[in-house]
């Protein structure tokens, strides 16, 4: 399929688009956990790696059909998300972050196992991911995310972030909802991981190291915590940036680091963190006499 598309689009850009798409899926997952529900997770790469390795091994060693391998990977990640969530979600913000770091690191250490090819990694993963598939998945996932975040469950997640005690006073079982957020978020993380593995053809434990978790976190924070369009933009920018900065080659991480600091100083809520669809519509509609201000943001 991609071969057909490369007649129209330079394969380099096609590849970038696929990577952007995968990162969007990963980041949306993290967005649910951290951006919306306010549970700081700095180990999202751990879920990604679980999805990647599970699906890769199923594909390669058990001749599993692609879609099934993907789903299985996502489920394994979701299962771990749920299991991790239950005991740790009673911890306060920073402590939770520490546990997520620890968890991701432990997974990475255990990824050095035999069937996974140890540190050398796993090669020969069938390249089943292509642009169209990723595009379709992104659209579907964005749509479902949007529905979810505007629903009763989504608003409850936001309320936990804003004021957990008040949320409880409204009847929200915060522990259950936090675990739910973790499970859904890690499902998407595992899904992204599976797509990643079947695109890159080759994976190794250090692809999913702490830095990866940080990159994903940056996408959510940069775009604006809890905002779906924000996360998409954040993922896009931060996937493109290293590529665009290739011009400055070895200095690019220097720029990246400085960029993060500067962004946090000048725009700590991210690019779209303070923007609501409602506000944008309001500004556009100011000319007309406005009678329908009853759309929910």
């Amino acid at each position: 399929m991609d071969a057909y598309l490369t007649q129209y689009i330079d394969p380099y850009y096609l590849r970038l688009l696929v990577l952007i798409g995968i990162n969007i899926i990963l980041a949306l997952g993290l967005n649910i956990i951290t951006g919306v529900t306010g549970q700081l997770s700095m180990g999202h790469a751990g879920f990604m790696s679980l999805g990647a390795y599970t699906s890769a091994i199923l594909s390669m060693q058990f001749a599993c059909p692609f879609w099934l391998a993907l789903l299985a990977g996502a489920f394994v990640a979701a299962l771990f998300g749920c299991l991790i969530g239950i005991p740790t979600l009673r911890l306060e913000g920073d402590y939770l972050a520490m546990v997520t770091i620890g968890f991701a690191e432990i997974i990475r250490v255990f990824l050095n196992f035999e069937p996974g090819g140890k540190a050398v990694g796993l090669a020969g993963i069938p390249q089943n991911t292509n642009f169209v598939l990723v595009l379709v998945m992104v659209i579907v996932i964005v749509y479902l995310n949007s529905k979810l975040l505007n629903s009763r469950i989504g608003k409850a997640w936001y309320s936990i972030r804003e004021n957990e005690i008040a949320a409880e006073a409204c009847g929200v079982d915060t522990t259950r909802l936090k675990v739910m957020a973790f499970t859904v978020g890690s499902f998407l993380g595992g899904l992204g991981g599976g797509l990643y593995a079947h695109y890159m053809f080759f994976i190794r434990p250090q692809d999913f190291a702490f830095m990866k978790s940080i990159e994903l976190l940056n996408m959510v924070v940069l775009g604006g915590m809890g905002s779906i369009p924000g996360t998409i933009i954040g993922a896009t920018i931060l996937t493109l940036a290293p590529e665009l900065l290739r011009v400055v080659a070895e200095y690019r991480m220097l720029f990246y680091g400085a960029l993060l600091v500067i962004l946090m100083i000048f725009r700590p809520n991210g690019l779209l963190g303070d923007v609501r669809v409602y506000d944008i519509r309001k500004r556009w509609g100011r000319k007309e006499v406005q009678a329908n201000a009853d759309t929910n943001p």
Partner: protein
Amino acid sequence: MFLEQLLNGLTLGSTYALIALGYTMVYGIIQLINFAHGEVYMIGAFVGLFLVTVLGVNILVALVLAMLSCMVVGMLIERVAYRPLRGKSTRLSALISAIGVSIFLQTLLALLAGTNTRSYPSIFNSQTFDLGFAEVSLLQIIILVFAALLMIGLQIMIHKTRIGKAMRASSQDLEASYLMGINVNRVISFTFAIGSALAAAGGVMVGIYYNAVWPYMGMMAGLKAFAAAVMGGIGSIPGAMIGGLTLGVLEIMGVAYLTSSYKDAIAFGMLILVLLIRPQGLLGKKITKKV
């Protein structure tokens, strides 16, 4: 054999403790996980290396100079990347800023010094003493003694000096301290300075002891030292010391008696265990939220 491993563990643990102190002090005052702290440790190692190998400076002098320069680095980082965010934005943005600094510094050193692992010229390495029940190297003794001196010095400063008192007050209630006339900015800068100096010392010691200095050494050591600080009770200075020493011992023991491939997992496994059983760490205070 066991005692030897214990000693190895304590040596490694002392370096963790020195780094952990910086994390815990900063967190105690401004509730920030200073992700760039590992990089200060790394810079300390490099400065010391540079002074000794290029400028031929005496190792002790180099150590002191490394500590001093890292004090400046630490204070600069605070001034540039954290202070503008203080009070204005969420803890998460300060964290991201810290990460940005960390990435920046790693890359900077990688560009300046190359990514190869370098080593200090061996000064004390070879000499060992046979104590009968264990064999211990002169270097280990020096490191242990020096680290102990630094930590004792820190305790004295915290409890016997005015600035130390100001630090303790600030870590209990920053706003109240400000209202009481304490120059909070100065206290925070000072805290960063002291923490960075200790980390630098740790860096030089590790450089000499393990003979390895490279731009990305701060990452793993930083994470582990941070885990140690949390285990001991984040915000607690004795906690950081105990946490660091314990972690070092556990890691060495784990490698010696279990398996070496999972040694990194030991630190984080311990961390998770402690957080699940006793989130405030060994010596931390339990914070009850006011409703």
